[in-house]
């Protein structure tokens, strides 16, 4: 079948150092992957095209890039699935949120720095056992998803927070952190959770689910981040806007059945956080002027006692 690919090219050492798209036309087999197409370009059409790959079977994690705007592994994306229905070219770009070295090759240093910073090794307590550190199967089952991570960087590429803040730990490192916090053999939870509670940690995630959607291995990094939030709060770190926001939200639903939009920001910032309180004033004035203020008196939903009873019942189960 005939295939058109539009590949983002960038070579800081060439005469044209402005990133640009170059179109290639190929004849490909129905079973071909995007990676097959790129290799064919490099081998038969244009030897200057740079890309990373190795295993060609979604194991090594080296071929993550953006296909039609979304991150994934080139080696497990079939050309036929990526072909736009309107007959235009498949758009191939390097992974996002990482500096481009050349063409589709990005610099993974920031990625490794993030992963390293969460200390991705087991830190057990007590005396070293003679054999392995043993853990019951059932305690390890919940880690089956995270240990599948192949560190390809697809989640980092499309993370909407990293796009505005390179200080964020990012989905890959946070999922890795969960892998150790959730490991029954690891004894560094206290230290780990304290660090994850800092700025750039678990609370900065927007819950946009981009990482869940693009991960080729079902790691679901965002779900791990949410579990870490719960663990951070359970460990007693409740003095952050994030923890206060979650608590205030749940309290509002418990108490009235729905969201009290006036109290929420006040409780999230903490009533004594004067600076943040003052930062709310301009919006309050703008909203007032536009006639856009939530009702001052927050009424409970009818029969709210049913909601409260569910809260009591389910929370007792926990």
């Amino acid at each position, binding site marked *: 079948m005939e295939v058109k690919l539009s590949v983002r090219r960038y070579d800081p050492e060439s005469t044209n150092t402005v990133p640009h798209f170059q179109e290639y036309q190929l004849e490909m087999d129905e079973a071909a992957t995007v990676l097959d197409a790129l290799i064919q370009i490099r081998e038969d059409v244009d030897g200057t095209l740079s890309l990373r790959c190795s295993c060609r079977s979604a194991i090594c994690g080296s071929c993550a890039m953006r296909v039609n705007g979304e991150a994934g592994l080139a080696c497990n994306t079939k050309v036929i699935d990526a072909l736009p229905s309107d007959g235009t070219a498949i758009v191939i770009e390097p992974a996002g949120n990482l500096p481009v070295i050349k063409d589709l090759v990005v610099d993974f240093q920031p990625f490794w720095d993030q992963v390293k910073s969460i200390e991705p090794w087991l830190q057990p307590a007590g005396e070293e056992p003679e054999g392995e550190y043993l853990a019951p199967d059932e305690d390890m089952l919940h880690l089956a998803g995270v240990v599948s991570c192949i560190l390809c960087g697809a989640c980092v590429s499309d993370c*909407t927070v990293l796009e*505005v803040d390179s200080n964020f730990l990012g989905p890959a490192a946070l999922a890795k952190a969960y892998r150790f916090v959730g490991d029954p053999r690891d004894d560094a939870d206290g230290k780990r959770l304290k660090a994850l509670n800092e700025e750039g940690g678990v609370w900065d995630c927007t819950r946009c689910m981009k990482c869940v959607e693009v991960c080729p291995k079902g790691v679901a990094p965002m779900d791990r981040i949410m579990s870490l939030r719960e663990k951070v709060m359970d460990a007693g770190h409740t003095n952050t806007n994030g923890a206060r926001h979650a608590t205030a939200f749940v309290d509002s639903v418990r108490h009235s*059945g729905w969201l009290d939009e006036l109290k929420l920001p006040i409780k999230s*910032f903490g009533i004594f956080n004067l600076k943040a309180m003052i930062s709310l004033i301009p*919006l309050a004035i703008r909203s007032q002027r536009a006639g856009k*203020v939530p009702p001052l008196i927050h009424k409970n939903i*009818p029969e709210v006692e049913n909601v409260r009873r569910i809260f009591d019942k389910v929370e007792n189960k926990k």
Partner: protein
Amino acid sequence: MKYAFYPGCVSRGACPELYTATLEVCNILGIELDEDSLRSASCTGAGVLQEKNLRLGDTLNARTFAMAEKAGLPLMTICSTCQGVMSQANQRLVSDPEYLASINEDLKEEGLEYKGTINPKHLLWIIVEDLGMDFFHSKVVRKLEGLKLAPFYGCYIVRPTEALGFDENPERETSLEAVIEAVGAEVVDFPGKTLCCGFPILTINPKNSVKMVANHTIDAKDRGADAMVTPCPLCHLNLDGYQPNASSAAKRDIDLPIIHLPQLVGLSLGIAPEKMRLNKHIVSTKKLLSELAVAP
């Protein structure tokens, strides 16, 4: 067509214009809204409650579904976030009968039981799937020609695609564009349309949140958009309410009105802008409306 109406917290709180516009629009489109059967339904949890206790969130949503089921009506939402949270909860409940049975245990006392037959739907999907584009076209009395609109979906109505049924209903992926085209306006496509508006971290990391507002609104504006349209009131709150902050952070004028989906539909159905409280936005819609030659 009659639906059990789930308005969500925001349309009854900070975005009353969304509620009003929805009633007006549904009236003309022949969508009958039952406002009673879900009157005592709770918040979906918006994903925040689920962070703390997933089962609690699923129980509250099962309760809402059971109420709609009891009334014998399909359920309509007008919020991308409610849609997503409900779809995700529903997927967990319906795919695991044992889990559903144990959740139903906690609903018993109220005389409720969820049987798993509800398929929550946003007004956007109802227009595209239940009414159909041909019918919708036939109702449009004022073509909004010349208007350039950037779509902004809101994360929860586009991800995760599995829970949202995108495989069975592929038209959902481009539903907002379909409505923009049906009202005669031009779609301004931009990569931010399915990304995060920044609302969930507004009180957690305001700087990042405002940066997201700036990036999306400026990108849409630079691509020629006259306004942005969204099916999500939370996106509206951030993109509209914090646009002045985004503007000063980015040190440039943005001035991009953010229109709720029902307001856009309403304009094409000939509903007067003030009836849909288009004059109650932070970013003024005055210029936009005067270009459309409809009085504000």
